[in-house]
């Protein structure tokens, strides 16, 4: 099946405004008659729910945390891009559009990306008005920094806590609507299934994580803003609770999963310290502005960093990519780190680490300036490792961080399943095969503040979804299936914890479907994962009851879904026989290790259809056409 992204045609710079002029609108007094369901309360979810409620719709929001303010968007450090050109350095909507398409290695939709670049400027305005305390210049104007993959300064930031501040802005807007009675909030509530009636997404089944109560919630449309699936690797920079369950359950109910193999490995994380490690901590990429990345020139050099003379250091990013240097895009930087570690030149315990050295910047700008810029990051590093970056170079290593793949959506952010909308990281739409730094916050907020309010109105006005109530047999059926699944997880009485399975599948994924993949490895993974799944089905142990807070039960349900997703990721990675962005197939690289795309065969989106347990999923394609940016080899040399 050829998928249709429903993108507007014509000149790219007027597509979105023409679309907005042509869509159908819902009469203000009719808006309150619609009920919308939003799952997730991060940047996309909170901003979308608040904006829709401001328009007059009834919105119900669900999140697994105890408060919507805790969604993992909060952990984004570096910043948010916007084509404001406040710095007068030649930035423009076109350039942001171009950089994003190129950064995504020409695997994203031009129309979506251009819209993203256009609304980026409105996001900054909105956030400033909400009271987001962005960094300022002495004159009171907004300050910018530069970020990987761009040659202009277009990143707005609030110290190293930009995600936190943007999320608090969206959260406050959401709480305002909760206070006004327009949004009903369901914290500590997990979506466990999607209710589809007559081919249309009509609601969700949830579990109250405190009482264990399984409940159905119906609405005129369902929106998923449930984030990415980076926790498939067990060790990632995601929060411990991040999971794929909502998206995966929707996938099992018919929503296509697009490009699952596109995962982003972030180059600057604190390396693994031991086998008890529960998560990895990211050090903002902005550190690369003032930190130089190096490893010893000689393999097996175990001297302390301070004792390695300048001449025996290899500043490999500066050497390989002279024009971008330490600011080369994430996928390139990550692979370069892996490469030097594979050569035996890695540093720290286990040899999986490279230095990020602030010494030169401290000498040039003074410790005070560095402290002002990165103080909280450096403190965090010191807390975790017990080492002082003002004296010793930091050790960093890549870690899973973001997933570009996700549920397939069209230009309206609607999946192939009518009435199911997917926002933010949970969808696949804007970043292609690689996301640029400071673009995730931009996309989440673009979807929530400025896209869904329009496209949702158009959907409701056009489709006028018929009434469904809780007594509908399909609702009862899905509810019963959820209850059944929960019972099954509790009744296995095996020996192993869900975490132990998660660690096992995570290791397979990291080794075979991580920073670099190859055919043999992926085939091994496709053997290994079903075996883990089978063992999971026999030997899982979940203690505690159903009608209470049961963190092991929650975890078990999520791991079960990761065990299915992992297989799909490997399958997608195997079929995509090219290297592009975050998907690096070792068979397809230049002699100096650069990714080689195959535009003839793979210039498309792969969207997978679930066909049932134990059955092969079906791969659909959506062709990508590049009218405004010419397909070119991505070069950051």
């Amino acid at each position, binding site marked *: 099946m050829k998928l249709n992204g429903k993108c507007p045609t014509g000149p790219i710079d007027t597509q979105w405004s023409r679309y907005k002029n042509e869509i159908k609108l819902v009469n203000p007094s009719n808006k309150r008659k619609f009920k919308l369901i939003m799952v997730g309360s991060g940047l996309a979810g909170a901003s979308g729910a608040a904006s829709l409620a401001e328009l007059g719709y009834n919105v119900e929001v669900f999140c697994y945390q105890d*408060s919507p*303010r805790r969604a993992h968007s909060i952990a984004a450090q570096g910043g948010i891009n916007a084509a404001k050109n406040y710095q007068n350095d030649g930035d423009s909507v076109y350039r942001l559009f171009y950089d994003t398409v190129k950064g995504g290695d020409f695997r994203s939709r031009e129309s979506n990306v251009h819209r993203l670049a256009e609304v980026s400027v409105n996001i900054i305005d909105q956030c400033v008005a*909400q009271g987001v*305390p962005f960094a300022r210049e002495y004159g009171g104007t907004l300050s910018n920094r530069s970020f990987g993959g761009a040659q202009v300064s277009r990143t707005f930031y609030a110290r190293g806590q930009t995600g936190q501040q943007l999320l608090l802005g969206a959260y*406050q807007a959401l709480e*305002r609507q909760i206070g006004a009675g327009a949004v009903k909030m369901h914290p500590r509530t997990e979506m466990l299934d999607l209710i589809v009636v007559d081919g249309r997404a009509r609601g969700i089944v949830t579990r109250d994580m405190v009482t264990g109560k399984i409940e159905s919630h119906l609405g005129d449309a369902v929106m998923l803003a449930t984030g990415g699936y980076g926790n498939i690797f067990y060790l990632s920079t995601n929060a411990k609770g991040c999971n794929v369950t909502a998206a995966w359950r929707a996938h099992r109910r018919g929503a296509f999963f697009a490009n699952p193999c596109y995962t982003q490995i972030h180059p600057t994380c604190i390396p693994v310290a031991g086998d008890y490690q529960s998560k990895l901590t990211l050090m903002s990429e902005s550190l690369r502005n003032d930190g130089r990345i190096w490893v010893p020139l000689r393999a097996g050099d175990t001297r302390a960093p301070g004792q390695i003379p300048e001449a025996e250091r290899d500043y490999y990013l500066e050497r390989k990519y002279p024009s971008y240097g330490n600011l080369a895009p994430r996928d390139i930087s990550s692979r370069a780190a892996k490469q030097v570690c594979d050569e035996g030149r890695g540093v720290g315990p286990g040899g999986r680490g490279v230095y990020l050295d602030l010494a030169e910047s401290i000498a040039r700008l003074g410790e005070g300036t560095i402290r002002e810029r990165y103080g909280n990051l450096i*403190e965090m590093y010191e807390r975790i490792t017990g080492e002082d970056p003002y004296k010793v170079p930091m050790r960093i290593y890549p870690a899973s961080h973001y997933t570009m793949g996700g549920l397939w959506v069209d230009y309206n952010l609607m999946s192939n399943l009518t009435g199911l909308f997917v926002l933010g990281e949970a969808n696949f739409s804007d970043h292609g095969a690689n996301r640029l730094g400071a673009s995730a916050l931009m996309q989440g907020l673009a979807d929530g503040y400025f896209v869904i309010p329009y496209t949702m109105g158009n959907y409701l006005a056009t489709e006028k979804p018929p009434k469904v109530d809780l007594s509908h047999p399909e609702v009862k059926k899905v509810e019963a299936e959820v209850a059944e699944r929960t019972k099954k997880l509790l009744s296995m009485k095996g020996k192993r914890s869900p975490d132990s399975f998660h660690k096992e599948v995570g290791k397979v994924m990291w080794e075979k479907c991580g920073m670099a993949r190859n055919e043999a490895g992926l085939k091994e993974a496709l053997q290994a994962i079903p075996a883990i799944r089978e063992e999971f089905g026999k030997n899982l*142990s979940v*203690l505690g009851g159903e009608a209470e807070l049961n963190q092991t039960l929650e975890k078990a349900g999520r791991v079960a879904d990761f065990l299915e997703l992992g297989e799909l990721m490997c399958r997608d990675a195997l079929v995509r026989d090219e290297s592009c962005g975050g998907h690096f197939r070792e068979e397809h690289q230049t002699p100096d290790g650069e990714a080689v795309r195959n535009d003839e065969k793979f210039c498309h989106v792969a969207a997978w259809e679930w066909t049932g347990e134990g059955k092969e999923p079906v791969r659909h394609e959506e062709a990508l056409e590049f009218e405004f940016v010419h397909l070119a080899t991505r070069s950051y040399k």
Partner: protein
Amino acid sequence: MSGNDLHLTLKVWRQAGPNVPGKLVTYDAPGISPHMSFLEMLDVVNERLQEKGEEPIAFDHDCREGICGMCGLVINGVAHGPRRATTTCQLHMRYYKDGDTIVIEPWRAGPFPVIKDLVVDRAPFDRIIAAGGFISVSTGNAPDGNAIPVPKSSAELSMDAAACIGCAACVAACPNASAMLFVSAKVSHLGLLPQGQPERKARVLRMIAQMDAEGFGGCTNIGECEAACPKEIKLENIARLNRDYLAAAVTRRPETGSGGAG
């Protein structure tokens, strides 16, 4: 396991549900690496409990990088443990000695009932924000970001206050279980910016009214909140809140209807 591993004794608050009595239960915890985080130590203890067929200890946590505000334990009588400006998840076991006994309790406050073991309900914080902790600007209404210059010093002070992660350690540490530091952080964050001025007085009145309604204690200027705060929110914010409150109380006028005519 290495020679540096710690052998600890944990005394952990176990409580099966909201309305049942709980108690401190002692666990032996050998083989704890000093490089583990506090929560990783609990993970290890939980994994061992699970192996023995005992229910793991429930505790809240999510990002494990000190920003989401979900985790929070009172460790040996100190909210978030002994290290200054550090959340529980960022506390590492290298601050403990072999043979130490560690008492772990949940946040204790009337408005935060225990849900299970170390997990408490912090919903009152959301309700305080919903009562007025925002700037009323609907999507699409915003002027250009640079239209209103914000003095760098105001932006910085505002950011200091906005760094609050809503973990509620301030409440847990306060002998009165007062939420004043939390409320003052939000009042300061928004009140220090030009954008926050129109609602400044109503905001502080509403948030305090909600805080009182939730059953938090009052501030007696003791300073435990400031000492416990992982984001180093300052008592100065409470002074600012008080100032704003006084100004709002003195200059308050009855609300008048503002319905437009047609």
